[in-house]
């Protein structure tokens, strides 16, 4: 089965020599919920708009279920977009907004009136806005408006739905619940959803696949676990989760095993083909993978230093440590971990160490 969406070498230049999207190639499987993740200005929204047909790429091709749609205008692509500001039509009621996509086009291609009504009802129920069907957008709350936008996009039953930072303007509580609802709707409908977001927690918790973008380029595309546990670049590692980076030198490198020197100690990690003795590399580990030194497994990397700052997060505390080597790391501990003479002694299991060759 062909991928739902396939991008081949998509680039987009804006006037003023700004390269917003730089040679992105991507294959999105049908039925997946995919997040394009990155900070503002990384090109993710531009890429989404190119997929939707609201911008045309400077080079490259787009395929929808195997068909080349690069030259098709937005209205002829069978995908719908949910806009960041919801873009509800202020002069139409909720029901009329939802029905809009079904009431356009030449009469002979439209569904019969009864069917349109039935569909509007169905999607009104799905987003739980039945009682508000006759209200105008300005009389709705932010969360309600968002559901109308969602129902409107879904009502035409497209195979692909695109979302431009849909949860950006909601408060934390609402975001959580909407994330759950969107996941549920996705599971129910089985369509392909593509999200754009800058919130890594959102991306990690909701998606089947994450595409991390920076500077217009797609840095990594994989499952949340892949991207989180096996980041392929420093940026990706830094973007997801709280990471630490330490300088290290390769001592020995053999097919299955490599020995690294760092923090005045030696450490054995899984081998990699691109390592050779004497090479300078970066070792990355997550702040929450540290364990107290006392309960460290054999072969763990010991990390200890002066605890200069402590931030309380309810479920855990994060400490800033100044190491003997002068480097600074962040480690998470249970909220009431003990600090002895201002020093914190932790260790990171070797399996949690990622070697990055930049």
């Amino acid at each position, binding site marked *: 089965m062909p991928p739902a969406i396939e991008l081949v070498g998509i680039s987009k230049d804006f006037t003023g020599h700004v390269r917003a999207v730089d040679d992105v190639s991507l294959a999105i499987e049908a039925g997946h919920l995919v997040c394009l993740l990155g900070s503002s200005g990384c090109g993710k929204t531009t890429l989404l708009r190119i997929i939707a047909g609201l911008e045309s790429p400077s080079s490259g091709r787009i395929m929808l279920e195997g068909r080349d749609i690069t030259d098709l205008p937005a*209205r002829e692509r069978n995908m719908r977009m949910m*806009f960041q500001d919801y873009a509800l039509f202020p002069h139409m009621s909720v029901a009329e907004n939802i029905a809009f996509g079904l009431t356009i086009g030449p009469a002979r291609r439209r569904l019969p009136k009864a069917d349109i009504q039935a569909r509007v009802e169905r999607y009104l129920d799905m987003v739980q806005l039945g009682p508000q069907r006759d209200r105008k957008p300005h009389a709705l709350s932010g969360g309600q408006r968002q559901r109308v936008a969602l129902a409107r996009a879904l009502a035409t039953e497209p195979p692909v739905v695109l979302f431009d930072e849909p949860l950006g303007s909601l408060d934390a509580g609402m975001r959580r619940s909407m994330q759950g609802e969107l996941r549920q709707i996705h599971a129910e409908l089985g369509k392909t959803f593509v999200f754009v977001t800058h919130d890594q927690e959102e991306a990690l918790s909701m998606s089947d696949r994450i595409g991390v973008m920076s500077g217009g380029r797609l840095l990594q595309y994989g499952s949340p676990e892949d991207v989180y546990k096996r980041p392929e670049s420093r940026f990706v590692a830094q973007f997801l989760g709280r990471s630490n980076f330490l300088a290290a030198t390769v001592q020995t490198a053999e097919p299955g095993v490599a020995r690294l020197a760092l923090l005045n100690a030696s450490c054995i990690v899984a081998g990699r083909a691109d390592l050779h003795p004497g090479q300078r590399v970066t070792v990355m580990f997550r702040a929450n993978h540290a364990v107290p030194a006392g309960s460290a497994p054999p072969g763990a990397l010991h990390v200890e230093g002066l605890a200069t700052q402590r931030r309380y997060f309810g479920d855990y505390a994060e400490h800033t440590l100044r190491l003997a080597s002068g480097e600074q790391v962040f480690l998470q501990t249970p909220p009431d971990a003990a600090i002895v003479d201002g020093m914190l002694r932790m260790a990171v299991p070797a399996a949690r160490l990622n070697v990055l060759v930049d």
Partner: protein
Amino acid sequence: MLASSRGFPRATFARMSPQMRLKAIWLLPPAAWFVVFLLVPYLITATYSFGHMQSYRYVPGFSLANYARIFTTAPYSGAIAQSAEIGLLTAVFSSILAYPVAMVMAFRVTRAAARSALYLLVILPWWASYLVKAYAWKTILGPHGILNSLLLSLHVVESPITILLYNTASVVLTLTYIFTPFAVLSIYASLERIPASLLEAAEDLGAGGMEIFWRIILPLSVPGLLAGGVITFALGFGDFVAPALLGGADTLMISTIMINLLGVANDRPLASAIGIIIVILAFLLIGVMGWAERRVTVRI
């Protein structure tokens, strides 16, 4: 300092709270001016309207005879209706002409410099002299004018066509010409407020150009359309220049009548009566405008 210079009773002023004092300072001068130069003149005019002329002298009175005359005898009764008709046609045609320009300004031209340039181009004819513009049409449409010269030289007609001049049609044409820039600005102000994302959403949902216009753009631009339309109507209604230069025997506008009454015919009471009627109509129009605006404005 301001208080004493206006001759305001100092005691009263001093007794007011600072807030009220401020309010008075800002609002009294314009309010006072309007009372003296707008309301009092209207009252005087109303007084005049109840009198009549006898042997070229004004005789004050207390009758509604003038008003009765206006509503029952020609040409007065017809003139108000005809002025309204011309005003309405002007408003309608200038709005129709204005839409393409306003839409191009709002949606097609995105760079600020180009938009300013287009804006300037649209405004310029509006600020060119009104008299001259009306007169220019006369030169174009007249028997020796450009249009006829062109048609004659191309042998499309044998003798100059006269249907284009000295009738209601030419008046409407000229007035439409004069007020189109204003309609453009009015409609543009409404269109500018429509967020681009609305149009993109409509396009994304599959709507074509005309559908987007009829279902999204037009409904949302109605406030600007109405505001501009009402003023264009009012200006067309009260015009006397265009009818004087280009109108014919069948074009009798209320302003022309008033000027005649104040000049040769010297019937100030009757003119005053017409004036009062129109003031009342204008007041009602403003009221209707306000009501319509409230009903039609959509909170974007």
